[in-house]
């Protein structure tokens, strides 16, 4: 077995036992990247020189008996919308193609404290707007299970990298499903933490009230470990929750007896692919076998989530993306005589079509005469959706649904129809609307050999129950025996 095939908790064990060095692990990944990334195209940029230097230094520290974190020297890949001082942070946009971040995101500061090694920055839909990574301004990322298919998005690079062993784990961001949907399409584990659990400082904003950073990993144990490293209060993010730090690995308990699981019927009904539906029903059955109580329930207003999501997310995005004006950083047009030209031409040339489409929608719903009908109304419906979730969590510990209504679709299949693409998020967006935590983990392969993901949704700040349920399922099934070719 190659080093790049191990999970992080396995690598940590090997490092602790001195069976392997960080340099060897890191080298193994860069060799794998050179071999495999030309066809997967997960990375926008790699940081080989810095990474090897860091790995050697950690090995030296370990050798000389210096106190180091058990994660010291473990490599990681970062979605290219998180700032690392001195490295390019492009958001897969022509607008930021040459932008070198002048500061570290808080998650990066946290990982630095543990001496993790950055392999590189991962491809994404431009400014995290998309569900297929086809909207990257640079190139499309391919699904390791079938290179003709999309890896999902927007964290498509982060998911594909883990699935293809191009990184042991990665960070992604999730605004409407951008961690979970690609995790599902790539057959890996992706967690969207509760809004406010992980600092957003240094994450290039798409939609401020929905964005959350989270881990993409090979298994549930790694997910809990990486969440441990990045979760926690941050003074720099006003929306970050000030609560006692938890050790999520303590929730990795192989037991769901008595756990109450709700199965919202709307997510196994119309619009969901039959193979996906059957797979999720099989999961429900499995949970019952393991001692959980599974009940069908209803989240009727959930069907409005996609509409609410696009109104709110685009409104916030239209404002968040105003700062990209070609003045202080980023792309500046060559065609200008005056300031107005700089604004208009830089933005028109620097942003791709999907970003512009969403800026237009967002500007429209906030504009005079439409604000009440769209933005204000959407925020009210958001309250209704949140209330419905709260009601369900009075009764259930967690909710079970598919992550995506379909398995990975072909590159180009949906890229011409925005609404069809938006509906690919219909199972994941309600979670962001509610600010809730949810995990996606693989549960089966469809008839084409493509992974199907299940989604477990918890109530706010109850990641523990999600981990426990996910871990129990993982321990009693064997999806990890499947690997992309």
């Amino acid at each position, binding site marked *: 077995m190659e080093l790049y095939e191990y999970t992080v908790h396995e690598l940590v064990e090997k490092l602790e036992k001195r069976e392997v060095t960080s340099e060897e692990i890191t080298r193994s990944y860069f060799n794998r990247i050179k071999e495999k990334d030309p066809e997967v195209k997960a990375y926008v940029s790699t940081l080989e020189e810095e990474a090897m230097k860091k790995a050697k230094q950690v090995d030296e520290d370990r050798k000389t008996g210096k106190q180091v974190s058990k994660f010291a020297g473990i490599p990681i890949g970062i979605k290219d919308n998180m700032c690392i001082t001195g490295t390019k942070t492009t958001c897969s946009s022509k607008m930021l193609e040459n932008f*070198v971040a*002048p500061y570290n995101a808080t998650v990066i500061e946290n990982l630095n404290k543990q001496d993790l090694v950055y392999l590189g920055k991962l491809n994404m839909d431009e400014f995290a707007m998309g569900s297929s990574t086809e909207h990257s301004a640079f190139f499309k990322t391919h699904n390791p299970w079938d290179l003709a298919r999309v890896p999902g998005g927007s964290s498509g690079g982060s998911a594909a990298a883990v699935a293809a062993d191009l990184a042991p784990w990665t960070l992604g961001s999730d605004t409407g499903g951008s961690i979970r949907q690609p995790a599902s399409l790539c057959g890996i584990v992706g967690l969207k933490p509760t*809004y*406010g659990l992980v600092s957003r400082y240094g994450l290039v904003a798409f939609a401020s*009230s*929905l964005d959350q950073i989270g881990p993409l990993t090979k298994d549930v144990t790694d997910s809990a470990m990486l969440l441990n490293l990045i979760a926690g209060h941050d003074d720099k993010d*006003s*929306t970050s*929750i000030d609560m006692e730090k938890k050790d999520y690995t303590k929730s990795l308990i192989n037991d769901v007896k008595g756990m109450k699981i709700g199965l919202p019927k709307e997510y196994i009904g119309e619009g969901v692919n039959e193979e996906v539906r059957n797979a999720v029903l099989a999961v429900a059955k499995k949970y019952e076998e393991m001692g959980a109580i599974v009940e069908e329930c209803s989240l009727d207003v959930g069907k*409005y989530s996609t*509409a609410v999501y*696009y*109104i709110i997310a685009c409104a916030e995005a*239209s404002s968040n993306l105003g700062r990209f*004006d*070609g*003045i*202080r*950083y*980023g792309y*500046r047009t060559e065609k*200008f*005589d*005056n*300031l*107005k030209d*700089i*604004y*208009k*031409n830089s*933005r*028109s040339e620097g*942003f791709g*079509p999907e970003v*512009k*489409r969403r*800026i*237009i*929608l967002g*500007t*429209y*719903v906030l*504009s005079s005469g439409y604000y009440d*009908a*769209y933005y*204000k*109304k*959407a*925020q*009210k*419906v*958001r*309250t*209704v959706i*949140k209330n419905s979730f709260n009601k369900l969590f009075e009764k259930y510990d967690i909710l079970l649904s598919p992550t995506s209504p379909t398995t990975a679709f072909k590159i180009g299949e949906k890229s011409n129809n*925005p*609404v069809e693409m*938006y509906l690919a998020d219909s199972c994941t967006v309600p979670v962001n609307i509610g*600010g809730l935590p949810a995990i996606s983990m693989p549960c089966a392969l469809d008839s084409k050999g493509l992974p199907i993901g299940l989604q477990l949704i918890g109530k*706010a700040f109850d990641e523990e129950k999600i981990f426990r349920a996910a871990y129990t399922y993982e321990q009693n099934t064997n999806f990890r025996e499947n690997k992309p070719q």
Partner: protein
Amino acid sequence: MTISKDEINHIAKLASLNLSEEEIERYTVDMQEILQLANTINNVNTDGMNETIGSNEKSNVLRKDEVIEFGNIELLLSNAPSKDEGMFRIPKVIN
């Protein structure tokens, strides 16, 4: 609910975007479809509901009034497409 090209043009102006004829054409059609989806929210009864503001119920997150200077102007200016004398440079703006 229909949206005209003129409206798209007006919105593009507000958003400081310069759209080609072709883009206006396409976005007008796209917006029509997207707004049709968006309009479905009118089916939800929201009488007496408050708007959600932010994603959680936190309040009063306040910072102490203590100076911490970033201290690296060079780094902050390093990405500027045009700069001079420690400032960002743009074509002359008539005030």
